Each structure stands twice: as structure tokens, then as C-alpha cells.
């Protein structure tokens, strides 16, 4: 396939995201009710989980799957360590905030992954279904890494550690992703066909409206931001760039196909803005959401949607051709 096939800016998905950014920048009062936005995010997770499960029901499990899962786990644990060092050294963040930000970059963004699936798919690059499982396993290890870094040498609130672990491993998105993945696996293509009209036909349209909302929120947060400085902005672009390219390379090395390696890159590049912020509010309340949410949601997320995904796609194409 040709590199020129990536034309994200003609896709309604991207255009709605831009509309959201623009509307917020102009301070329009356009807003999607939060219950609807929450509902759409649950729908997207159930749909992507189901689809992945059905794909694996068809393809079966093999060594490639294991390798991808292991790579994902490792990245989720280690990216925070790297990010932490840079955040401390280059951006001079204190230990708590550096740990919190690091956790976000090790974890993943479901919507970035979903958008990548669509954009890559539109260019003929079909991501393997098992990547949904990789997505799910990458969500939480980074939280643990980030917390350990943030609390090194400190006395944690002992009694709540168990509770925290439960909250982290049973958080809504992990349960819904893995749950619908399992349902897809069990129900298989035949069972899936019954619910396909809702979960597949409507998918791209819902993604448009959800990205409209994300655009609105991301730009609003950037406008209200007070806590960012130039170095943090640079890192919020450098992190996804570096992690993404690294992810594609590793994906290529462990034998993933072009699309799937690109998707691994996208997962590494993406930063969480759902599960991790909520966990940080609980476990690291002193950390400033004005830093971690603004970086992950208002800079890294748009960067990935508008530039990163295409870039990692092209890089993966290029890599597999060389």
C-alpha cells in the first residue's frame, strides 16, 4: 500500500474532532451531556471488545499473541520509569507529579486505539483482533509503576493498598473491555451477528460524536490551563513520538504484521485520560490534574489523533518494506 493512502483529514472522524477543538477555541457553548458521553465511551469499549473477541475466536491464539501481550505488559511497566526520569531531569517536576504523569504515559487511551483502528482500516491496514487484549493488559501496570515511583522512600497509606489494587484491576474499562472480549470469544461469529447492527454499523458514527466531545473538552482544558510550561508541552509531544516509534519497531521485531505493529505503536504512544486520572485522584491527591490531565488529554491525545496515528502507520509500512 502507498503512504499517500493516509488521508486522515478527509475522514469525518477527524473532522468532528477538529470541529470540537474549534468550537471550544471560539468559546461556543456547544456541549454534549456527560451521561451521553459516558454512554458512548461504554459503547465504544463494548464494541471494540466484542469485535476483538470474535476475531480471536476466528483466528485462534498463537505465539504472536503471547509475544504481543508480553511486549504490551513490559511497555506498560517500563515506559513510566523512562518518562519519570525525563520528567524529573528535564522538566524539573517534583516526585509526586512526575510519578503521576509517568503513569499516564505508560497506560493507554482506548479512544486513540479505536481511532487508529478506523484510520488504519480505512487505508487497508487491518489490526489483529487480539490487540484489544493487549490494550486491556496495558491499562493498569503503568499505574502501579507510577505510584511506586511517586512514593519511593515515602510511607504509603498502608491500609488502602489492597483496596487500590482492586480498584485498579477492576476499574470499569478493564472489566468492560475484557468482559466483552470474552463474550465475543464465547459467542463467536454466529452469536455476534445478532448484535452486529448496533455494535458495528453504528460504530464509526458514534466515534465521530465522541471525538467531537473529546475535542471540546481537550481544547477547553488547554484554554483554562495554568500549570503547564514549555518543557512539559515539549514532553507531551516527545513522549508519544518516541514511545510510538519504539512500539512500532518492537512490534515489527516480534513479528507482528504491518497494521498490528502500528497499533502497538499507537498503544505505546497514547496516554490514558480515563482510568489513570481517576486512580491518581485516589492514590496521589497531591498531584496536580492541571499537569497530568492537560498533558495527556489536551496535547498528547490531539497529537496522536491528528498526526501520530498516520505517522506510526507510515513508519510501520516503511519498516516492513525495508
Amino acid at each position: 500500500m502507498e503512504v499517500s493512502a493516509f488521508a486522515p483529514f478527509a475522514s469525518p472522524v477527524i473532522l468532528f474532532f477538529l470541529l470540537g477543538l474549534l468550537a471550544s477555541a471560539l468559546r461556543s457553548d456547544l456541549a454534549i451531556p456527560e451521561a451521553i458521553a459516558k454512554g458512548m465511551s461504554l459503547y465504544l469499549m463494548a464494541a471494540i471488545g466484542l469485535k476483538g473477541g470474535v476475531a480471536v475466536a476466528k483466528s485462534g491464539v498463537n505465539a504472536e499473541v503471547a509475544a504481543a501481550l508480553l511486549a504490551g505488559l513490559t511497555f506498560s511497566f517500563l515506559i513510566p520509569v523512562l518518562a519519570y526520569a525525563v520528567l524529573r531531569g528535564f522538566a524539573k517536576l517534583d516526585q509526586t507529579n512526575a510519578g503521576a504523569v509517568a503513569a499516564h504515559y505508560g497506560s493507554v487511551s482506548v479512544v486513540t486505539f479505536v481511532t487508529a483502528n478506523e484510520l488504519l482500516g480505512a487505508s487497508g491496514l487491518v489490526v489483529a483482533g487480539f490487540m484489544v487484549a493487549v490494550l486491556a493488559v496495558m491499562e493498569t501496570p503503568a499505574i502501579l509503576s507510577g505510584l511506586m515511583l511517586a512514593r519511593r522512600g515515602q510511607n504509603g497509606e498502608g491500609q488502602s493498598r489492597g483496596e487500590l489494587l482492586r480498584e485498579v484491576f477492576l476499574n470499569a474499562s478493564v472489566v468492560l473491555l475484557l468482559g466483552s472480549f470474552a463474550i465475543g470469544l464465547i459467542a463467536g461469529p454466529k452469536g455476534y451477528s445478532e448484535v452486529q447492527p448496533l455494535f458495528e454499523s453504528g460504530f464509526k458514527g458514534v466515534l465521530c460524536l465522541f471525538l467531537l466531545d473529546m475535542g471540546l473538552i481537550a481544547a477547553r482544558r488547554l484554554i483554562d490551563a495554568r500549570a503547564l510550561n514549555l518543557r512539559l508541552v515539549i514532553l507531551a509531544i516527545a513522549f508519544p513520538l518516541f514511545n510510538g516509534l519504539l512500539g512500532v519497531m518492537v512490534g515489527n521485531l516480534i513479528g507482528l504484521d504491518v497494521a498490528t505493529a502500528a497499533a502497538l505503536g499507537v498503544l505505546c504512544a497514547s496516554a490514558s485520560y480515563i482510568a489513570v486520572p481517576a486512580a491518581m485522584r485516589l492514590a496521589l491527591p497531591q498531584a496536580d490534574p492541571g499537569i497530568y490531565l492537560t498533558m495527556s488529554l489536551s496535547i498528547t491525545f490531539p497529537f496522536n489523533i491528528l498526526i501520530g496515528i498516520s505517522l506510526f502507520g507510515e513508519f510501520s509500512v516503511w519498516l516492513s518494506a525495508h
Partner: protein
Amino acid sequence: METVIRKRIEILVDTPLVRRVTDAIDRAEITGWSVLPVTSGSGRDGRWREERVMGTDKSLVLSIASAEKAEVLVDALAPLLTSHGLLLTMWNVEVIRGERF
């Protein structure tokens, strides 16, 4: 109708933390609590709005209790109040059917 004086305690708290606050209320042996949604806000950490999607929204926990139990609750919540930046206000109200509290 007869009324008695009780404390009304309202605690503004991150939604993921609501459970810890209500657990403390239960432990203080207060008869109950209610949770109200909060749409948006602004404080030292800047503004937030419609962030239920991100799980970073806030809720208002409201509880009616006797002055003694209210004090027990406030003391129990003290560490959480400072560490997690909760906002607690408390005032006297007249209550009907006050024997429940």
C-alpha cells in the same frame, strides 16, 4: 410540629472517593447519607466541567447527624480532608422526625 436541632454536614468530594466518605459516615454510626451530583466547579487547581467521562468529577455527600456524631465524623475524616482536599461545611438545622438521627 416539633423539631429538634441536628448538624447538617455537606462534603464536596471527588466522585471516586465518595465510597471512603460514606464508609466513614457508616462507621460513625450515623443513620444515613445522600449523594448529589455536581456539574462543574473551580478552585485552586483550576476549573473542571462535565468530566464524568474522565472520572474526575465531584459529588456532594450530605448527612444529618447529632452534634456528637458529627464531631466523631469530622475527626474521622480529618486526614482525608487534608490529604485529598475535601471541602466540608456544617451547620445547625431543625429536623422533623429527629428521633431517627
